């Protein structure tokens, strides 16, 4: 997954995590600034820009509350990433959209009919992700962007691996239409 292989952990990062866990807000701000771009990108891709800011804040507040539970068994970035995914999934469930997002929506196949601008392909690609139906989008981000396996996604989302595979294929076929526009 994207963050587990993150070698960009700065020198002193572990010290900052330890200080933050001990209640040092300044150290926690450094931790926040190191990771906020990746966490915000995750929330933006999974939930959309509208909710990304609020949920990113929720994630870091939750991180602050749970830092004492981080034992260093894995990289901090991996631990944080999993916590972030859990918060995002929790948010989706709390708004009771889990049921709808797993239903098929044939109309969604008509999305992205206009060729996007070529100036910033990454942004265009993210816009296309944002137009995926929620269920397919969540699994596409978790699998193809973040690197989770179907069995992991199935556990996280309380679905079967088969559903995860079908939604992923559906998402890729929709994203393929976006590539057609380039």
């Amino acid at each position: 997954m994207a963050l587990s292989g993150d070698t960009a952990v700065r020198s002193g990062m572990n010290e900052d995590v330890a200080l933050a866990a001990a209640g040092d807000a300044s150290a926690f701000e450094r931790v926040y600034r190191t990771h906020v771009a990746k966490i915000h990108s995750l929330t933006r891709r999974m939930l959309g820009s509208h909710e990304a800011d609020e949920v990113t804040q929720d994630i870091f507040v939750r991180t602050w509350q749970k830092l004492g539970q981080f034992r260093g068994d894995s990289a901090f970035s991996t631990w944080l990433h999993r916590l972030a995914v859990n918060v995002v999934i929790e948010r989706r469930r709390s708004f009771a959209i889990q049921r709808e997002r797993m239903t098929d929506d044939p109309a969604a196949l008509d999305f992205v009919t206009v060729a996007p601008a070529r100036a910033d392909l990454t942004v265009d690609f993210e816009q296309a992700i944002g137009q995926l139906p929620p269920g397919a989008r969540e699994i596409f981000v978790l699998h193809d962007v973040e690197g989770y396996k179907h069995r992991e996604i199935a556990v996280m989302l309380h679905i079967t691996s088969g559903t995860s595979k079908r939604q992923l294929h559906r998402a890729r076929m929709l994203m393929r239409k976006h590539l057609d526009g380039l």
Partner: protein
Amino acid sequence: MKMHTEWTDKLSDYLDDELEAAERAAVEAHLRECADCSAVLDDLRRVIARAQAAATAARPPQTDLWTGVAGRINCIRQPRRVSLTVAQLAAAAVLVAAVSAGMAWQFAPSIAGRPDSESSAANTDRTVASSVAAPSGSSADLQVRPDGVSLIGVSLADDQYDAAVADLEQALKQGRGKLDKATIAVVEQNLQTIDQAIAQAREALASDPANSYLSGHLVETRRRKLDLLRRATALTDMD
């Protein structure tokens, strides 16, 4: 391009190495014969490559969210948040109301005569609302008054809070038929109690808009309302 969905439906599993050997061989045999399906396969490869590239292209938020995070963690003195059941929330809500009532009684009369509270009456609601919305705001900024008191200001986010509450209340209304009467009674009683607590905190803040303790209390109370609504709505979504 002709779509052979019986084959294209297998292409993601093929790319992810999720097919059994025999099925994989069958797909490969078809791909050797079918240019259209091979083109789809190439497209899917491009999609995956773009997704993997996106993983390394993280973009920070457009606004600095740290102020909002800092405001919230400053309100949190306990290291861990305990996950509450609806029944536990009932007790918590009663406590919130009691504390709010006590603070409203304690603070409001004693600070009404402060010079800096007089000119702020008209702006109190906006200030309070902004402070309350800080956790969800994307444009939080830190304002420091001449007397050194820090205020967290947020624009527009109060509308987002109100909209979220309205959505959840509507969802709860639609799903209340799935809840038993006792649960509905507990939820409604607690919402009423929390609303009273919010009103009392607002009243206290009207007299002392710079009181960060009251602001934090109001933030937490409104957050509790949102949490309760979310939990109650989630209950209606259970089969």
